[in-house]
């Protein structure tokens, strides 16, 4: 069953078209949302979490209409959200902030709220800093505080906007574990610039560019599109859409290869670069990569 359905959704900010005729459905599991800056990823997520209203089209989240007050409250009760950026009220400890968010999520009884707050703090690996002020934490720890509040009540829909920003490799691995477990029973939507996170976590990926859906399908299918278009060489190839010198000293090239080159297995990043680059060539705009 689909947790969220967007049909012909559009959104504008003044003259800028953030989303154009977007059709998407999200079901149980982890879905990755990729796209260059300004592609409309955050706008899409904010519509899903009812923080923003679409200008056109129809949106249904967890079987409810976010356009009605009753529907919004019903959605928010089953929702966990990690925004791209957020601050914290002054003076709060980690426990105090998560507890504050739990109150806003209608956990009105302290006897059930505090054990739940402890559970999500443990789940986000914050037990050791639970009594510390949020302002004194590192950037990665603050991201985990935001994640902790999103896990309150085991939400049916978990929406995360660049959750791995600022996390070290070990923290990212733990976050992947947390999200993959959540994805077993819930719908998890992650917007990120980290293609390796999507490759490691997601079965399905959606690529947005300039407010339009460029790709919606399995990660392996997207990678498959790049087969035969990634190669190594001893010199940079000007014909490649993207080329860079790797740590081994050889050049990795992504694009349409000349004959006789050494083709290699593409990665999700290669496929993403090609997809966005090809779209830019088709529309005559400069690729943002």
């Amino acid at each position, binding site marked *: 069953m689909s947790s969220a359905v967007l049909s012909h959704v559009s959104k504008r900010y003044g003259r800028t078209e953030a989303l154009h005729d977007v059709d998407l459905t999200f079901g149980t599991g982890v879905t990755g949302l990729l796209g260059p800056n300004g592609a409309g990823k955050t706008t899409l997520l904010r519509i899903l*979490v*009812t*923080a*923003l209203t679409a200008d056109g089209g129809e949106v249904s989240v967890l079987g409810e209409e976010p356009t009605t007050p009753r529907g919004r409250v019903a959605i928010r009760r089953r929702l966990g959200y990690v925004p791209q950026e957020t601050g914290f*009220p002054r003076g709060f400890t980690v426990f105090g902030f998560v507890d*504050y968010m739990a*109150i*806003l999520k209608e956990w009105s009884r302290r006897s059930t709220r505090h054990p739940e707050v402890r559970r999500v*703090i443990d789940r986000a690996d914050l037990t050791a800093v639970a009594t510390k002020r949020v302002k004194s934490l590192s950037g990665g720890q603050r991201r985990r505080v*935001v994640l902790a509040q999103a896990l309150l009540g085991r939400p049916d829909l978990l929406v995360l906007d660049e959750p791995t920003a600022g996390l070290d490799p070990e923290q990212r691995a733990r976050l992947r574990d947390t999200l993959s477990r959540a994805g077993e029973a819930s719908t998890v939507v992650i917007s990120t610039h980290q293609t390796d996170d999507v490759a490691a976590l997601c079965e399905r990926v959606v690529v947005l560019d300039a407010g339009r859906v460029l790709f919606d399908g399995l990660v392996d299918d997207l990678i498959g599109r790049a087969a035969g278009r990634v190669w190594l060489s001893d010199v940079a190839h000007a014909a490649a859409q993207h080329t860079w010198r790797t740590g081994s000293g050889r050049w990795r090239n992504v694009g349409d290869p000349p004959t006789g080159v050494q083709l290699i297995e593409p990665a999700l990043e290669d496929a993403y670069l090609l997809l966005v680059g090809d779209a830019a060539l088709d529309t005559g705009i400069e690729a943002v990569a």
Partner: protein
Amino acid sequence: MTTSDARPWHCDEETLAAFALGTVDPVSGTSVETHLMTCAECRAAVSRLYPADLLDLVWDGVRERVEAPAPGPVERVLVGLGLSAETARLLVSVPAMQGAWLVGLFCATGFAALATTLDDELGLMTFLAIAPLAPVAGIAASFGGGADPAHELVAAAPYSPVRLLMVRTAGVLATSVPLAVLVGLLMPGPAWLGVAWLTPAAAAVCLTLAIGPWLGHTATAAVVAAIWSVTVAGAARMDDVLALVEPAMQILFLALALLGATVVALRYRTLSTPWRQS
């Protein structure tokens, strides 16, 4: 207990079980407790004798005491006045209840009092310009863009926007009104001046709240402040500042306040968030 000259001794299981259940006699209990501090084997043995759920319960109790922040003095007062601990927590987290805002408010009203010592008319004009705008500034601080650092999270929480509005507005009024009333009572002129500014303040607050979700609370507060400041300055030029709080004007401000309150009551229920979408 079992002892040996050659080997370290250990508590027998019966004694440990009595210790775990709390039925051991005081002398043996003290002895076991001292022994447990140095014997890992007996510590492991006694921990197995405790029911797992009891250990979890005790541990949760310890964490509750250590981790859950104790309510501050303001929170305790609010709970003492009959508010729930949860509402009190939301109230003290209102930006307008926090340090920088309170210092600003104290300075602004103090400035009006100071002006009175220089010149009665100047002091009166300053007070009338500042007092009704103090709660408006608080509204901007509580609902304006960037005022609430966690507003993106709050916007996606199911807590009622209307209730949140009431809690935050109560926080603003609780901090700004008493101080301004106190300064007003010290002003030269009639005693009723100390409370007469409340109707223009109510009108300004209600209109700011009513228009805020569309124009933005900060922008609305700025417009309201500009209109009020021009009005006060105009009255001062005509040497009749008190005319702004006379009965006819009071009725006008009351009507504006009612208009704003009606818009708030009708429209906030349908809003996605109490502040403007961005």
